[in-house]
């Protein structure tokens, strides 16, 4: 297959299409379980 003269180079990537179910919002907001204690550095 003769393609002729080279004109340009490039890089093409497929766009990641998000799945429909990934886009759906959760029906109810779940409360976070007992809040974890705030992390503080114990030592340096």
């Amino acid at each position: 297959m003769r393609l002729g003269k080279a004109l340009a180079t490039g890089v093409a990537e497929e766009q990641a299409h998000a799945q429909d179910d990934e886009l759906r919002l959760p029906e109810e907001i779940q409360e976070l379980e007992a809040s974890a204690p705030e992390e503080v550095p114990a030592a340096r």
Partner: protein
Amino acid sequence: MRLRLPEERPTEPPTGYKIAHPVLSQDGTRAGFTGVSLGGALPYGVLDEAACVYGRRHRAPHRRCDCGFHCVHERATAEALLCTAEHRAAVLLEVSVLGAYIRFERGFRYARQRVRTATVGPCACGAGAGALSDAGWGRPGWRALTAACAGCVRGRTSLSLASFARLAGEGLRVRAGGDADMAGGVQVASDAGAASGLGVSELVAEAALLQARLDWFQSQLARLDESGRQSG
């Protein structure tokens, strides 16, 4: 001295067209394609990566080699290749050009490819294709397939267009195109579709194929019955 080519970064993968022979793995579990010229020895899947066919240790496509997947910009250019005697049994592929590529005047040479649609021409008898059947040649581990109508399949290894699409995976669509379709005319073909959601036309084609298989099976049974009676 070679000039540095301008670099481009398209937002969408470019679309190209090419021809290839559909192939089925020896164990019948995988389907793909094999090229009609340079890459003919290396069957590829619906989503696949090119390797240098000369075994050189560079990434395809290399500017000073002619390795990598090839396609042309225009559908009509690819369809024209189907006119030659040796390419009559090939199918037309619509592909997405992925990864690194070199854009030429009439097409692309590139690193990765997604085959989006395969358009299958008519059976050798002229009827519309209902199946892809053993073409009588192949590559090690792969049987080449050719378009066949329900009447011409007979006892050959074959699978429906929808089954081919299912085995090939990655959302490949396989269409049966008539002469008008292959010549760039009105789309008259049924869409054999991706693996899911077969339509009426696809189911009719499946039924015709099953009926042809059953007719052939019954004729073989009748033949055995006949020869049994003659010897007994």
